[in-house]
């Protein structure tokens, strides 16, 4: 069962793409351009808001943002 935090991230992505109603945990968000480069800062703020912490950029990598599953593992586990 997913956390409330990752649900907020999923809702934010789906809110940007009204044509989609669901988003599997293993979909590559970057390569599928569900999160494009213009939206990356917003994604960071959405995760920080949902996790209640500031992201430490020295200790993360782009792979942590690849899918909902990796985001959940990196920020909500």
């Amino acid at each position, binding site marked *: 069962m997913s956390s409330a935090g990752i649900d907020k991230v999923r809702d934010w992505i789906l809110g940007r793409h009204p044509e989609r109603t669901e988003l599997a945990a293993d979909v590559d968000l*970057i390569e599928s*351009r569900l999160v494009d*480069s213009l939206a*990356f800062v*917003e994604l960071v703020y959405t995760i920080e808001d949902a996790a209640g912490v500031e992201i430490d*950029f020295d200790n993360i*990598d782009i792979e942590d943002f690849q899918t909902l599953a990796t985001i959940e593992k990196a920020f909500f586990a």
Partner: protein
Amino acid sequence: MARPTTDRRITLERIESYLPERSVRIEELGERLGLRRAELGVFRKFYGLDTLRFDPELPLLDLLRPAARGALAALPEGGRVDYLAYAHTTQAVAPADVDIAQAVGEDLGLTGTGTEAFGLSHQACVSSLGAIEVLGELLRAEGAEGAYALMVTGEQAYSPIVQHVPNTSIMADAAASCLITLDGEGDVVRSFATRTLGEYAQWLELTAEQNTQFGEQYGSRIAEVIHQAVAEAGLTLDDVDLVIPHNVNKLAWRQTIKELEVAPEKVFLDNVPRYSHTFASDVFVNYTTLRDEGRLVDGAHYLLVSVGLGATFGAMVITHRAGGEE
């Protein structure tokens, strides 16, 4: 007997670039640009920005002069510059009563030599590539022997609004210049494909929905003009040695690389952390870096690619010829 002018090929006789010495890290610009911690983090970690050249004290002509003089130095005995185009991204780069194209011409000593100097914009960061096509067409239309044209580009991030493209890049100072002729000894321009999506003409004033749409199609639109330029050159993407791109950011290119289905090393991104996005100069700055490192191969094909706000996508295929290199 003269050849039909439409068959004559545009050649790039000399390309030069110039970067001011003053280098800053992006964090030093945080306060000036009002960048929040997370924005700086994303710019550095994911967009690949690090340092850039920024010298607000440098007069614009001093920025433009070194590369323009360097390119002009390739003008052979008996050659003359019929046209000078100053290509720029930001539409207002100087007070309204200052014509930078004329000022550059005077600065280069071209006054009274019959050079027609004019500014060229409206394709934003593709304007420099667009200028090459325009200058080539002008030379073809005239068809005169010994005629050359000079493309000059370069501008400064003179205000925070100009320097920070939200969620996209931090603009930096640089200049570049290219001496052009027809059927010369330099790199051959084999094709130029461009596409403008006028619905994004509002630049930084787009709605959130428009920004989302633009971001979604960014990579595929670049891929379209790249495929078109390659096809018009009679080549395939496999025939191209290297994509020499604009330096907007690494994440945008990562998505474009995926769209193109090419190896990541096929796109030259080494200058993104060094210089960031230098308006319409990027492709020429990157070209000179590669040339000076001995990485351009005689006879090989290269793709110059840029995207401009507004929004214009442009791709030019050139074939390098090393004969004129010093």
